[in-house]
């Protein structure tokens, strides 16, 4: 039993945190979000420089072959700083590619990826795929429509799930070969609906089981990111309670607010415990059932507590919490997206009870 990061994990998390504090403060982030592209190539280059883009990639392609626990501290730091660069989409897609030369470019920071999976009407059912794959000789083409593909507008290649004669399979598609309708998501990250019309595709290894495992991996990472965002929401709200004065005293002297603040911290600690569980089980579960059950349990708690903490943090800030000017309102939006990302509490309650 040991809840510490190892030395490498800790060093990496610390250096990412230091970098973000220096170059990715709220003002810097605001400029990035307001830019036409909605992400910063300089930041991406820096993340690659620190080894982050290589972290989840196999050592065969110049990466470090890291798991969810290796990424946990990084994701917490990203949650704290509300990083909008498409790190999670790239990590998730890279995990599904496993073997391909594009991974070398990912490690070097020259390519970004996205995972195009969700479709209209799928909700969060992983097996709901209607996009169709057609083979002629050695060549594949894809037809269909993928919704809300996070990171797609800045991706060089997309990993796309589609059905062939045998079931769900995975393909690599060049971003230039699809039509995109980009939009800015509620949490200010960039996303796109993607239309595939006879799009040229390369067949990858893996099917539904690999998609399920990758989504559980992504869920574990988003749990860690949520924990970082929740910690910021709690800390900044506590600071506000100590400085904001009404009736001649700091509002933190009121017991009605003190108890709510305590409940927020307890909710954060409980969420953090479950993020530890999700990340370690994403790396080393006994079997798929053990992994799915643990990740679902974690996501139930993260979803419930992310909603709770985000709502309370705005409420305790009063009107100021509603404004664009305060970071907490942006953290609120990120946490709101996280509550449903990779399935909300309702979805995971059903999966948890069925396992």
């Amino acid at each position, binding site marked *: 039993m040991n809840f510490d990061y*190892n030395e490498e994990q800790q060093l990496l998390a610390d250096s990412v945190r230091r970098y973000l504090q220096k170059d990715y403060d709220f003002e810097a982030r605001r400029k990035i979000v307001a830019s036409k592209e909605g992400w910063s190539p300089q930041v991406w280059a820096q993340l690659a420089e620190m080894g982050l883009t290589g972290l989840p990639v196999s050592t065969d392609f110049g990466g470090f072959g890291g798991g969810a626990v290796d990424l946990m501290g990084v994701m917490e730091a990203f949650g704290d700083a509300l990083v909008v660069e498409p790190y999670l989409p790239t990590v998730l897609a890279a995990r599904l590619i496993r073997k391909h030369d594009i991974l070398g470019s990912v490690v070097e920071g020259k390519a970004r990826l996205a995972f195009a999976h969700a479709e209209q009407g799928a909700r969060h059912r992983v097996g709901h795929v209607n996009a169709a794959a057609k083979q002629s000789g050695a060549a594949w083409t894809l037809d269909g429509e993928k919704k809300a593909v996070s990171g797609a507008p800045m991706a060089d290649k997309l990993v796309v799930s589609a059905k062939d004669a045998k079931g769900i399979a995975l393909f690599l598609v060049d971003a230039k070969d699809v039509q995109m309708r980009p939009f800015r998501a509620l949490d200010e990250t960039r996303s796109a609906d993607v239309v595939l019309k006879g799009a040229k595709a390369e067949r990858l290894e893996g099917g539904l089981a690999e998609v399920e495992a990758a989504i559980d991996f992504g869920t574990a990472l988003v749990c860690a990111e949520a924990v970082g965002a929740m910690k910021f929401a709690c800390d900044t709200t*506590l600071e506000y309670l100590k400085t904001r004065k009404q009736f001649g005293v700091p509002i933190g002297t009121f017991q009605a607010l003190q108890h709510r603040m305590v409940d927020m911290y307890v909710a954060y600690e*409980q969420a953090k*415990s*479950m993020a530890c569980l999700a990340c370690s089980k994403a790396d080393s579960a006994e079997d798929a059932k053990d992994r799915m059950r643990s990740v679902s349990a974690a996501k139930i708690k993260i979803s419930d507590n992310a909603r709770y903490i985000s709502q309370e943090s705005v409420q305790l800030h009063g009107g100021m919490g509603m404004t664009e000017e305060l970071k907490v309102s942006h953290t609120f939006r990120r946490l709101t997206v996280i509550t449903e990302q990779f399935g909300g509490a309702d979805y995971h*309650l059903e999966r948890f009870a069925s396992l």
Partner: protein
Amino acid sequence: MDLNYSAEELAFRDEVRAWLQQNLPADLREKVANYDHLSKDDLLRWHRTLAKKGWVAPAWPKEWGGTGWNVVQRYIFEEELGFVGSPPLIPFGLTMCAPVLLQFGTEEQKKRFLPRIYNGDDFWCQGYSEPGSGSDLASLKTKAVRVSDKGGDHYVVNGQKIWTTLGHFADWIFCLVRTDPTVEKRQEGISFLLIDMKTPGITVRPLILMDGGHEVNEVFFDDVKVPAENLVFKEGKGWTVAKYLLGYERMNTGRIGASKRELAKLKEFASSRNISDMRFKDRLSRLEVELMALEITNLRFLDQMRRTGQPPGADVSMLKIKGTEIQQMLTELMVQAEDPAEAREIAEKLGPRYCSMRKTTIYAGSNEIQRNIIAKMTLGL
């Protein structure tokens, strides 16, 4: 990061589990499983069984009978006790009075009381709360006046304590009493006294709770003469003693082991009643998830404690808050899972259990007081 116990810790757990399975008498296991009230004999029989094995007071120094186990082993042992469904080890002697004597008592006091606590010769209870002093404990009024006569130095105690758990079984009571009503800072006029329950002038009156059970009492003191040698630490320093006890390693307040056993029972029960209501299943799942989270949170505290060698801070109050909420929800869902046609079962067993568990968020520092503690000590509010 590794959330699992080490191979040695697992071996230790298995050893404890096997021994408990073998040595917990069937009738006691049955009574606990049925939520029956336990007699003094039931409680002492189990206490003495553990004492004989050498496991009744793991945290004590080895010279007084402690096991020398580290914090993780002690935690595992306590959780296994809960998980197997043993009668509770009554804390007033073992984990309240004894740590106080070990820290503040004289050699004579230690020699006189500790072996008898260990062997279950004396049954202790706690005299803190008073009718007018609940959460605001420092306002207590029970008066102790020091007098000298030819019998030696004594305190004469007058007043009333309330919520005295198992006071009707007790041979001894440790009390906070007011020895100086004149000091400006009211905490400084309080002393910690050990009182023999057989002393003339003590009256114990039962308070029957809504589950019909007799667990708590009122204890009245009417000119009760207590030898001055029964004062622990210095006169007027009782608050220091009480505060020390509050900070005493409270790693087991979450009662994870017992709640895991109750959860397994609830799940089995719900499935035997063919409950298909998704809303019930969702509440059950959320409860299970909360318990999983609390267990990991508890292990995180333990890991931190093991690494730093420091007792946990005020944060540990959250274990009490969440642990008791879980205990209550377990009994609440149990009542709801029962077939309404089995109203008799509800009236006789599940209902009283539900009623009884409402106490958990009130006793041992209400959950509101726990929030005050975290707000002040951890958050600096």
